[in-house]
């Protein structure tokens, strides 16, 4: 789509030319900690359902280990390593895997899974943690969970996301990127235009054509729709209906022909 939003309006200023690669995979880019461990996981993941290589899966033992700071504090270095591993793993996981739910999970299950994750990783529970680095790691884990929850709880977003991760570019689509507003708007406008047409005459002929189709007067429908298409040659919806009418005419002709054929 050629609506590259540029970074800044004023010419004299150095302009940032932003999202040219719009829905391109935003590589995991939180500055700082997660990166060294994050590299190896960049390979596309032919992962099975639940790659729980993690010794303590997120939320698997919510009440015992993670929430208690007392438990975390002495074990800080190992806890840090565990979180690094978890973060690295999350790089290659889709949102279902991050929340540890099945692909077909119901909204209630997703909510429950997110609450379970929150119980284990919500930053409020680690407020008193003296180790800032560890705290940041927990925060990173939790941010991925809220992100997953935000996408999966919304039907429209979820549908789009599922389609994306099941496609060939799965590795690039693990993190949901919303279609840019302008693109969505253009698409919606196009759809509306096709539905109602852009010219009054085209609209009129199209309406007549539809009425004829409903009355099963196919050749009359064809005439009206042909007129409609002349007014709006690019309207896909009009063309579709025209094709439909023509198909019917062809079928009828064929039937008639067969009927007259002497066997």
């Amino acid at each position, binding site marked *: 789509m050629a609506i590259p939003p*540029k970074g*800044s309006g004023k010419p004299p200023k*150095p302009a940032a030319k932003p999202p040219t690669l719009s829905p391109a995979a935003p590589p995991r880019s939180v*500055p700082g900690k997660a990166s060294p461990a994050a590299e190896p996981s960049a390979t596309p993941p032919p992962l099975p359902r639940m790659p729980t290589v993690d010794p303590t899966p997120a939320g698997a033992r919510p009440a015992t280990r993670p*929430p208690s700071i007392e438990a975390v504090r002495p074990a800080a270095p190992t806890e840090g390593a565990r979180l690094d591993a978890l973060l690295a793993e999350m790089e290659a996981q889709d949102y279902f895997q991050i929340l540890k739910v099945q692909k077909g999970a119901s909204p209630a299950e997703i909510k429950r899974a997110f609450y379970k994750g929150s119980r284990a990783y919500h*930053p409020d*529970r680690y407020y008193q943690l003296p180790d800032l680095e560890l705290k940041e790691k927990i925060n990173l884990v939790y941010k991925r969970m809220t992100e997953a929850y935000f996408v999966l709880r919304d039907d429209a977003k979820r549908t789009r996301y599922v389609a994306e991760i099941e496609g060939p570019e799965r590795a690039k689509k693990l993190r949901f990127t919303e279609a840019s507003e302008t693109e969505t708007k253009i698409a919606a406008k196009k759809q509306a235009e096709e539905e109602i047409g852009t010219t009054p005459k085209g609209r009129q002929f199209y309406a007549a054509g539809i009425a004829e189709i409903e009355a099963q007067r196919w050749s009359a429908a064809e005439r009206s729709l042909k007129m409609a298409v002349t007014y709006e040659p690019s309207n896909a919806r009009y063309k579709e209906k025209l094709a439909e009418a023509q198909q019917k005419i062809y079928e009828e002709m064929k039937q008639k022909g067969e009927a007259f054929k002497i066997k």
Partner: protein
Amino acid sequence: MADNIAIGIDLGTSYSCAAVVQDGLPMVIPNEWGDLTHASVVSFLENDSVLVGNNAKKNIITNSECTVYSAKRLIGRYYFSDEVKKAQAVMPYQIVEGENNSVRILVRDRKYSLPEISALVLKEVKEIAETYLGQPVKQAVVTVPAYFNDNQRQATKDAGRIAGLEVLRIINEPTAAALAYGFGKALNQKIVVYDLGGGTFDISILEIGKEVFEVLATAGDTYLGGDDFDDRIMSWLAEDFLAKTGLDLRENKYCLQMLKDAGERAKIDVGQNGTADIFCGGICQDPQGKVMDLRATLKEEQFNKMVGDLVQRTFKVCDEALQSARMTASDIDAVILVGGPTRLPVVRNGVKHYFQKEPLEGINPDQVVAMGAALQANTLLSAGADTFLVDVTPLSLRVGTVGGYTERIIEKNTPIPIDKSKSFTTSRDGQEKVKIRVYQGESNKAEECEMLGEFEFSGFRVGYRGEVKIDVTFEINTDGIVKVSATDLATGKKTSTTISLSSGLSEADIQRSIQSNQATQLAGHADPSSLPALPG
């Protein structure tokens, strides 16, 4: 008592309130006169001392030019914003322009920033708490309207720092109210918090469980509050007076203050008794020097008509929130009212009618927010506490693009904390820096959004245009505060800069303000350190 203690502060437009958790239960802290709420009014006295609270409120009329109130309406706003212009017309104190389009208040030849004014209110509240608890208070959770943008949140946080408080967390007022309502009750409900304060209106829809308080949607109007109700009465009184005597009371700031005071009292009387007798003795003089009084009677019906459209405006916002949460009014299990104006029958009945539900009784609309904040403060202090809040960002986060447009990065009502990244590239060969403007709002036009700041990222590898890729991460943390950082991925080097968009106060400004705040003597309190020095 525990050696570190954290209080919850509801820093309101007209009144502030503090609470603390003792033995697991939140309680509101009274001042030495037993007042539970303290006017958010700061009066600068002639002897360089500062009077804050209910006593300062009396000075709005007598010392109007040096008494600052409703500072929350101005905090975190740009000088050119509508709210500031409106305030300039009605406020008796002087509102002037500071650096970078910020707002300053000029009192006795000294310019104060808004965080400094709010810090004085916080300092008063802090001292009240210290007197009551008998120990220093250094930490607090401060609440803000849910619909506050990043600038306003930052400025509030700065105010806390200036007052010598470590602000553990900024939480949203409706969320705090819900916390106070549902804490320890093991409920499983969908609730609405209808928060009509002195200057702002917020609505939040929450799902509360045993340990989770999840905000499903929030919406608001930062230009709508109880003050607007007062304004309506004021205008009515002034018009009436003008018609009768030919004198416009609004031309004189002293008269205006008396009118405002009368308006506020009339509002409360009408709410309580269904009628209000208004009397302002000696409000002005006619050209012959004859002293005039203002008398009027306001009936409930008349008042309801006056403010009907304001109440209706809140329901438009409710529609929006319900829509965001994909719910209808009938899905709601309980309605909580917060803020003084919700005591008015016209508001109460409106809410009842809209949600088809009697609002909950037994919740004090002035105190519930502070109590929720205290609970949250307590949660943060105690290790491994078992409640957690999942709040949302009230406004969409955007970046500026070409031609005065913006592109949405994070949608409103997204749960926080969250981050989103976007790749940017250079537009010229050899470009050394990129500039990114960050906005908050719901319009794709930059001018209709609130600009949070502009940040410049440099120090990446210089290359041909389009070749250098910079990854910009936008983060909203648990305070609802925005952080932007940039990373150059092309070189594999992590040259990242993290810029918190500031509230117009530089770090040096804040440090200076902290110094001056500490030096400020609040009148009406015996400063413990000065006690021994008093002449016996």
